[in-house]
């Protein structure tokens, strides 16, 4: 290349098209590829099995439609849906309230003690990694069948979800106001309430709304293991081969989840 201003040739460096790959990176790629291929090969549906399933699906649909419209049954479904929503709302609210202090204690640079951050991060990870159905089984055994077990399940599940994102939102909050308040002698708790939470508020609300959406979906299936809500009705309908009733319940669930997503989406847009 000729440098026009200096009128002399400039030697430009030749850059590699692809970055250098170390032996360890190459081995990791091979291992990841092998895991993906073996997973697909072992547990993915074969075209033959899918083809065999289609007529059975058609038969099931035939037995499901038209859905049950008996007013007495629909009334029972309605009250079960109300209970489902109550489980979701109570569980989410309790979970969010507990997540706030836990998120704070797990947030690096925000928590009052450095030592607590690791402990509370680990606790939140534990709550998050155990699936909600397992929590439901544990609470059904400990507090008995019904909605209370469902509420406790949603609460723990919400702590696992919100605790992590609340902590991260607090860590990401603008540091400058925090430093300014620290300089005038404000306590860590006052800094949290005066500067961190107001700054992280859109993120906290967003996370809470996602948690509520998630809780509504979770509370629907908790009844399958006896933790109250509409899932219990759905399970007994399938167990008794009452597919038209099951179809009505599934439509009701679809409707309630759709409404919930619409409401939370509107709220999110109005807040952020």
């Amino acid at each position, binding site marked *: 290349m000729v440098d026009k201003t200096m009128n002399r040739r400039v030697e430009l460096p030749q850059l590699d098209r692809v970055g250098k790959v170390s032996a360890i990176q190459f081995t990791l790629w091979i291992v990841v590829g092998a895991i993906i291929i073996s997973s697909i090969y072992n547990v993915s549906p074969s075209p033959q099995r899918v083809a065999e399933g289609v007529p059975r699906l058609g038969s099931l649909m035939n037995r499901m439609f038209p859905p049950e419209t008996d007013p007495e049954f629909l009334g029972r479904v309605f009250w079960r849906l109300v209970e489902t929503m109550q489980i979701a709302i109570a569980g989410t609210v309790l979970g969010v309230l507990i997540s706030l202090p836990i998120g704070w204690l797990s947030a690096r640079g925000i928590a009052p003690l450095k030592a607590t951050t690791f402990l509370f991060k680990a606790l939140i990870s534990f709550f998050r990694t155990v699936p909600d159905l397992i929590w439901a089984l544990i609470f059904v055994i400990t507090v008995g069948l019904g909605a209370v077990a469902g509420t406790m399940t949603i609460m723990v599940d919400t702590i696992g979800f919100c605790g992590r994102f609340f902590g991260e939102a607090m860590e990401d909050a*603008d540091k*400058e*106001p925090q*430093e*300014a*308040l620290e*300089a*005038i*002698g*404000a*306590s860590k*708790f*006052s*800094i949290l*309430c*005066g*500067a961190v939470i*107001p*700054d992280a*508020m*859109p993120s906290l609300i967003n996370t809470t709304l996602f948690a509520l959406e998630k809780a509504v979906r979770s509370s629907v299936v908790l009844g399958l293991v006896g933790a109250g809500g509409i899932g219990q009705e759905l399970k007994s309908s399938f167990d008794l081969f009452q597919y038209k009733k099951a179809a009505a319940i599934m439509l009701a669930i679809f409707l309630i989840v759709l409404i919930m997503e619409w409401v939370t989406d509107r709220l999110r847009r109005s807040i952020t």
Partner: protein
Amino acid sequence: MSITDMHQDLTGSERIAPRSDSPHPKTVNTSPLISAQKLTKQYGAAQAVFSNLDIDISEGETVALIGSNGAGKSTLLKCLIGLLPHSGGQVSVLDETFSGRPQAAQARRIRSDIGFVFQKHCLVSRATALTNVVHGMLGRAGSWRGWHQAIASPAWRQSAMEALDSVNLVHKANERVDQLSGGQAQRVAIARALVRKPKLFIADEPAASLDPKSGHDVMQRFVNLSKKNNITLMFTSHDMQHALQYADRVIALKNGSIFLDQKSDDLTAQDLKGVFSG
């Protein structure tokens, strides 16, 4: 005495005026508010940021601390009030004497009498101007009421409104800070510092993030408020004009030492050029 009583003549719009027109003549009390002896700051084995500095700041003085980038202005400011530990020497500030870092109780006493203003306004952007001024009360007893204006005591709210009035921003009290201009936000930051009724204002490049006009406006208000209330003001700046126009005294740092320490009246821009030259 309320803040309103103290600043009632500052609520009107103030024009940027030469210092000689200032309604507050330079009357300087001689009792030292800050005194540093042989002050040294060093990070690890690196070259000292500054060493063996002797500085006395009297009550009521307005002092500009100038120097090129990296000269150690902000570090010196923080060391003088115990926000950063110093490596050698001794500091006395607001009747508290310490070496290295002040004890926790000492630090609380020192901070309770200082109003801070930073280069960026450092306000909670999603909170209103009033809430941000109320935040100035944090660090005091019962300070949970300083989290938000809605739960602040009537006396604190009144003080916060008076502080906003003194920077001519009462009409913006209920507006979120992120809706304000840079100059207005910095004035809110001054009100937050003022609401504490401090003995000492510490300002780190208070006008650096503002355009020249807003910068002068903020500095003019800041200095007027300090003078009116006999609050000692120490500010860092890399703007020679600000140093000469608004300070009683200019201290220049260069190569880790005090290059110049003189009354601003005795200085010209030409004198200060040496501060920034290689």
